[in-house]
């Protein structure tokens, strides 16, 4: 396996309760992987570690990017002067947290409870996502220099591409709050993609969608993975969706990995059946 993400001995606890305990796994490149398990098993916690919102107590997370390999936890908990970050960024990470840095390395995510910029238009949501990619400073923007105009044009093109991909083009000037629930879910994925990630983490993308919308999502995700250099990690409860689209499944229970394998393997796994899918039905 040529992994994009490698998690080693990850442990984290909240107020004495262990949420993740010695978690080890790898995510293959350019495939869809799913993280499943009962509610409260630690899936979202793990997500928050991978995307930099929680700092684990111990363990390492390696992201094997296209150009470099980075150790994510180290970036969140740097010394006073980390070589990867530079002085200012290290200081900032120590005092304010530095989860945004992980996005620069190519990790993007969505949230279980959709977090769009509700009072901004659909297009603006997608442009905000490209904030760090837009060239130029305040003045070049104010005076519309050529460099700025060009970079804005690129950003708009990318945004339009994803709008088209997720069939949101007709709504580009609507406020995000005005979209339907399913459209908001898709917009959130489009927004994450606008940051041009290598690893896309989706937290329950199908929650609250009706069967047609779920089927649509399944189709879009498969197309997405096939046509771009993208690895996807998703948390999902809809087993039909998980078994249909993912090539690789990790099962978590009580903060521990109880099984890793292909959908077929997971469906036969006795421990998984006992903990999650139901004892007698296998």
């Amino acid at each position, binding site marked *: 396996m040529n992994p994009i993400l490698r998690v080693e001995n990850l442990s984290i606890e909240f107020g004495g309760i262990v949420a993740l305990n010695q978690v080890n796994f790898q995510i293959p490149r350019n495939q869809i992987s799913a993280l499943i398990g009962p509610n*409260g098993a630690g899936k979202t916690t793990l997500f928050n570690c991978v995307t930099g919102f929680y700092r684990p107590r111990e363990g390492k997370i390696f992201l094997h990017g296209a150009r470099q390999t980075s150790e994510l936890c180290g970036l969140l908990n740097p010394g006073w002067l980390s070589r990867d970050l530079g002085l200012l960024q290290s200081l900032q990470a120590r005092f304010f947290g530095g989860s945004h840095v992980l996005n620069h390395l190519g990790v993007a995510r969505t949230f279980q409870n959709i977090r769009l910029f509700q009072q901004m238009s659909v297009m603006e949501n997608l442009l905000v996502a490209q904030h760090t990619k837009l060239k130029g400073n305040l003045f070049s923007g104010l005076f519309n220099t050529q460099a700025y105009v060009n970079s804005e044009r690129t950003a708009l093109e990318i945004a339009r591409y994803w709008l088209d991909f997720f069939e949101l083009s007709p709504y580009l000037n609507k406020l995000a*709050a005005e979209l339907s629930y399913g459209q908001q879910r898709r917009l959130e994925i489009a927004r994450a993609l606008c940051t041009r990630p290598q690893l896309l983490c989706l937290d329950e993308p199908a929650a609250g969608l009706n069967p047609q919308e779920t089927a649509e999502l399944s189709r879009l995700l498969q197309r997405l993975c096939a046509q771009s250099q993208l690895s996807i990690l998703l948390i999902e409860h*809809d087993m039909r969706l998980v078994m249909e689209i993912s090539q690789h499944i990790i099962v978590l229970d009580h903060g521990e990995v109880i099984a890793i394998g292909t959908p077929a393997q997971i*469906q036969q796994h006795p421990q998984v*059946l006992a903990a999650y899918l139901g*004892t007698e*039905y296998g």
Partner: protein
Amino acid sequence: MDKSFFSLQEVESSYGRLPVLHKVSLQVQQGEIVTLIGANGAGKTSLLMTIFGNPRATHGHIYWQGKDIAHLPTHHIAGLGIALVPEGRRIFPAMTVAENLAMGGRNSVYASVDLEKILEMFPRLKERFKQRAGTLSGGEQQMLAIGRALMSRPQLLLLDEPSLGLAPLIVKQLFEILEEIAKQGMTIFLVEQNANHALKLADRAYVLVNGQIELSGTGAELLDNPEVKRAYLGSL
């Protein structure tokens, strides 16, 4: 007037602009165990919360012993004999076990009698009586949440995913306790994702999909239903 013990008729509700329930009708007879199963996000928790008026039902009726309670303020509903064990337990972490139980029984004149019985039923709570609830383990917290709900001597007990995040062994114990409570004559409405356990316990069951009731029947019927098997019991 509906004569049934407890029923929902064409109830709709929404969180802001997001609709969560669509014309949900169901009923629970006295002494029954009824379970509601459904996937994450199907609106199970919203249904229970709608019964308690948060979010408020925008349409339809909720009858409790012949009276429409859909428009009562939340804090009145507890006084009518309905108790809820909410999702995620929601015990008061900074209060002691004793205080948490007292909170449940604050409107009940039988509080001291019931406290004895409940502590008997949950010996672990007796051991930790003076301990802060936040320091309990997940299973103990769940017992506390159930104990707290029972303290008001309800006629109808609503449970929202009590097995959530508990180890299989504890889940087994939990369902034994629920069975025991039911044997003593309590009417139980159980919302579960752990369909397997729930359907075995239940007299009757409903299946909620996207805020709508899709199927209903006895527990055994649904256990054998291929559709249910496929969607909720994990065998493809």
